[in-house]
């Protein structure tokens, strides 16, 4: 991994089109500004990992799924009844 030291207000440039600026440093918190083309997606790494993990978990449910979905459908009808009551 390339490691660079930057001060507040200084930037690094990646390729022709991505610019990353250190906006502020407070204790162990660094605020970072990113200028990148729209087709480049930027996410907080832990959020992206969490969503990945949830998708993988959501896939692991084939056992008796149809029965569960039938029960879920019934249970969600009860919600409607309660709403109307």
């Amino acid at each position, binding site marked *: 991994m390339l490691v660079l030291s930057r001060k507040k207000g200084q930037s690094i440039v990646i390729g022709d089109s991505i610019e990353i600026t250190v906006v502020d440093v407070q204790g162990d918190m660094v605020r970072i500004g990113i200028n990148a083309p*729209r087709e480049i997606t930027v996410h*907080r790494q832990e959020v992206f990992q*969490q*969503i990945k993990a949830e998708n993988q978990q*959501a*896939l692991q449910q084939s056992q008796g799924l149809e029965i569960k*979905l039938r029960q879920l*459908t019934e*249970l969600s009808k009860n919600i409607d009844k309660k709403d109307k009551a």
Partner: protein
Amino acid sequence: MQIQTKYLGTVDVEENQIFRFPKGVPAFEDHQQFVFLPFDDEGTFFYMQSLKDVDLCLIVCDPFRFFPDYQIDLGDQECEVLEIKGPEDIALLTILTIPEDFRQTTANLLAPVVINTRANLGLQFIPENSDYTTKHPIFPPSQQKNAAGEGK
């Protein structure tokens, strides 16, 4: 055309039922074509079936069915990718995680599936900031317990 599905066997779908996800979905980035097939006539739950792999099938539903106050702020970037021209183009779906005890089913409100029903495009939205998590129980705790008593 005929497609293979995980839960419904071979199914006939029209071209205009196929949604293109240019970036796939996180963890399954190389899956770029999905169809949404209703579980039953109630139309509460849908299979989100990948055309590339019969085993990749997620369960989704309309988030407003269980979370009427649900809101997201879609960014310009997403609207551009989805070629959204107006709010009428957009439909939201939430991916469900259904555990052993189905009453504990949770919805991923943090990262909903957003589709453009006019252009047949879709993506899983990853917000920059959100108060939602990947695990919101779709039934309130009281219902999770009482559910066993049928007809109550």
